[in-house]
């Protein structure tokens, strides 16, 4: 599903060039749950931004399925992301002035879908995530865990093939974190490919594969026995 070949990313500050990704080669198959780990500054979030098509400044080859992302212009990349990628943030990034339902509707509103269809999809996801009762509340009326739940609902409402999560439980206490990770596993089981960035070994165990980065270089790429498998 995802194929990166020799992807590199650097930032220029004056005469200095700082590399954050070096010759990254990575293949992610459909249905995988990949965890990207590494110390701070290793390039985890940078790699996630490349995968999310939020960053245009990289070099190398990037295939999304049969689509050569490296040959697409900015607009085409944005369209691809709109259709096939969902994003979950550590700080949830819900919009304060929108209700839960409106926040979830946001990605659909950018897709030129009929309002009726959108309302149906939002209702379905509210039901699926069991947050129907909260649909008219504003983000500041929710707990952190509830906010992230809404963040995930918003990320998957348009049924993306790839779900990217950047430290999704970073701001949550352990019980809430476990619930969120269970939700990810459930989504993964239902066929969504997931790539998460985390520092947490416990969270990593929910995935099927760990990719470790150090100073921008991939240093480890291995399959893990997931928590589910362990439990079995």
């Amino acid at each position, binding site marked *: 599903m995802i194929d990166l070949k020799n992807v590199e990313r650097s930032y220029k500050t004056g005469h200095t060039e700082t590399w954050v990704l070096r010759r990254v080669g990575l293949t992610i198959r459909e249905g995988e749950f990949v965890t990207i780990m590494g110390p701070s500054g290793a390039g985890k*979030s940078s790699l996630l*931004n490349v995968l*999310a098509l*939020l*960053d245009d400044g990289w070099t190398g080859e990037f295939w999304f399925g049969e689509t050569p992302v490296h040959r697409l212009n900015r607009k085409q990349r*944005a369209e691809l*992301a*709109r259709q096939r990628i969902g*994003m979950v*943030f*550590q*700080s949830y*990034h819900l*919009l304060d002035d929108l209700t839960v339902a409106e926040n979830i509707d*946001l*990605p659909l509103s*950018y*897709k030129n879908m009929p309002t009726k269809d959108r309302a149906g999809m939002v209702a379905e996801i509210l039901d699926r995530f069991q947050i129907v009762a909260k649909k008219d509340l504003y983000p500041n009326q929710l707990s952190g865990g509830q906010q992230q739940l809404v963040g995930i609902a*918003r990320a998957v409402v348009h049924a993306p093939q790839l779900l990217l999560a950047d*430290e999704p439980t*970073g701001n949550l206490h352990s019980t809430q974190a476990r619930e969120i990770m269970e939700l990810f596993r459930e989504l993964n089981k239902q066929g969504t490919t997931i790539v998460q960035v985390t520092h947490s070994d416990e969270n990593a165990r929910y995935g099927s594969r760990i990719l470790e980065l150090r100073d921008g270089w991939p240093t480890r790429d291995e399959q893990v026995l997931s928590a589910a498998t362990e439990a079995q």
Partner: protein
Amino acid sequence: MNTLMQDVRFALRQLRKSPGFTLTVVVTLALGIGANAAIFTLFDQALLRMLPVDKPKELVRFEWTGAFNGSESSFGGDPDNYFSYPMYKDLKEKNQVFTDILATDRVGAGLSWHNQAEARDGETVSGNYFQLLGLHPAAGRLFTSQDETAKDANPVVVLGNEYWKGRFGSSRDVVGQTLMINGRAFEIVGVAPEGFDSAIGGFKPAFFIPVTMLYTVHPWRGLRDDLKNHQAIYLTLVARLKPGVTREQAEASLAPLWHSLRAYELTLYKEHSERFAKHFVDESKLKVIDDSQGFSPNRGDLKTPLIVLMSMAGLLVAMCAINVATLLLLRASARAREMAMRYALGAKRGRIAAQLLIEGGLIGLVGAVAGLLLAPTVAHVLVSLITSADPGSEPYSAHIDGRILLFTLAIALVASVLFSIAPVLHFLKPNLAATLRQNSGTATKDSQRFRKIAVGVQIALSVMLLGGAGLFVRTLDNLRNTNVGFAPDHLLEFSLDPGSSGYADSHVSRSVQDSIEALRRIPGVISVAATTDPELSGDGTTNGFQVQGYKAGPDENLGMESPQVTPGYFATIKQPLLVGREFTDADRVGQPKAAIVNLTMAKKYFGSPQNAIGRQITDGDPEKDGWSTIVGVVGDSKHLDLRTLLKSAVYQPYFADEHPNGVEMYLRTTGDPKKAESAVRQTIHALDAALVVDGLRTMEEQMDQVASHEVALAYLAMGFSALALLMATVGLYGVLAYSTEQRTREIGVRLALGAQRSSVITLVLREMVIIAVIATAVALPSIVMLARLLKSQLFEVTPADPVTLMGAVAVTMGMVALAALLPARRAAAVEPMRALRTE
């Protein structure tokens, strides 16, 4: 005290720290405060200031009511402001309630000093003029009652202070020397005091002569001996109330005297109806009114334009205050942590408020100083635009005095408090924990709402000012393009008065004739002609006529405009001759009298222009002076000003008058009339060095002069609205730029969730569009409402003129779009990756 000094020091440091911000707010305030100071300079002089004389509150003047039938000449205002000399003497001598009464009149004359001739305005005054006003001379002496003894017996002159300074270099040696006035020698006896111009408000005479010397400056008054004539009214009377006497008491006390004097005057009328007698005596009243500001017929005309301009300047300063408040609030957000820290360290609210007010006050003070530097320039432009006087003799000064200084400081203080309130309120309820936790301050919802309202108010005020300015500009444009009944292009004009150079009647018409012939020879001049009654100058000459075969009603006034014109006058100004002929060289003294009338007159008295030809008319005594035969009818024209058509007019041949007056000369040129100006001066000088070419200008310049209030309103309103628009744009930009910055994270999230750049731009603009639409919706009806109040200032444009209003909206919206462009582009360029990297 130490605390105060510390706050001032800190405030100065704050201002120095952000020079860009300081410069922006100071320039904004300087523009608003400077404009206000400038308008107030004129407003104060024209409408508020008292005469610079001793106890001005004791001064009163007179106005009468009732009928009158005689000769009236004025320098503005209604006839009921003017009195005859005999009436003046009677009132002065027989009243019990005044310390004294003075008489004065405006005159024009030719002054000659060391063979340098010039035409200047002056005043004929009673001998007690300066004494009554309590004035002391700057040099020599002022008049006394000994200078008003008998007709032509007092050839003495007091110089106006400004004229003395300008023409004689403030030399005291001029006292005792001779100044030629209309060719007659006058001894300069003294100079009026500094700061005093005249008892007539807004008038700056070059000289004062005793009223007994009236016939020197107005020889025609001598012909009917107006100093003894009860039926010639031309003097303004000013009195000083005796101590303890009120105006009401004075008026009541004067009533019997007034009625007896009027009853006597009635006996001087050869015939009159009973109704006229009732109006003339029984129903007539002498009103005693306040004159602490001096009588000024212009004051009424200036009042509305000045109030409009003052209001516009007030709106402008309000916009400045709002704008500065917005800018201060933007900065306040950046200082949130500083203030939170101060509170956390124990600062009390009062102290924080005081510090912010001191900062505001300092900004206001610097803005006021910068505004005061700007004000004289604006005031000078305003004075020259609105007074239509020749350079150097403007009745108002652009000088900034103590009163203006106080006014400016008051405006600055009010504005400072107003714009400081916003940041003070912003910091009164700090959320310490939240503010200190954040890396940078964020705007509260209250301050965001304030900024939105502020921007809305600024947009609304801009639309209002632009709409108002648009109406005034259209008025001016309509006035300039109005059909005046003749062709004002390619016309040059000037005043020529051989009488003021000392020439006797017999020489005056010869001199005018020679001048016309000499001027015709200038290359590029097609034709030349003259009139005694200049076109579009605001002045008129009305005489009472008798029309043969027409029986006037009991009180019907057959007063008609009665200019004397030279042959070829109508061809020169291109006023169409409808029937008959123009005057020719044959229409001279001793020949059968001819007259030309305008269309309105012909229709009113004869039914049609054709019927008027051959009919007879006179403005004198038919038995003594005979009748004039109508030989032609010309089209109607505008004469006094650009707004109103002249009613009935009877033109008479200039060269048929045995006692001719000075004339206004008109030259039609093939090319630009301006280019003929130097040739005109040279030609007249070569013809006779004693003749003075006065007020040489094109007819189009004259039209702008007669519409000077409209010109001033249009230009200044445009200037103010341009400034207002600029301020609204800057304010709008500030708010949008700031709110875009505040929304960077939101925009980043939206982009990350798939929003297109165009939808982000829409997001940023939508808010502005909503504010702009609401502001416009409020502003448009307000303009229409306000413009209705100013209807008298408009010409051929309605207060709700759709083109003007839509134009104002379009220009404002254009500026809104311009102001929004950069923040919108910046919003569209937000990199979601960076915007979200705040965790």
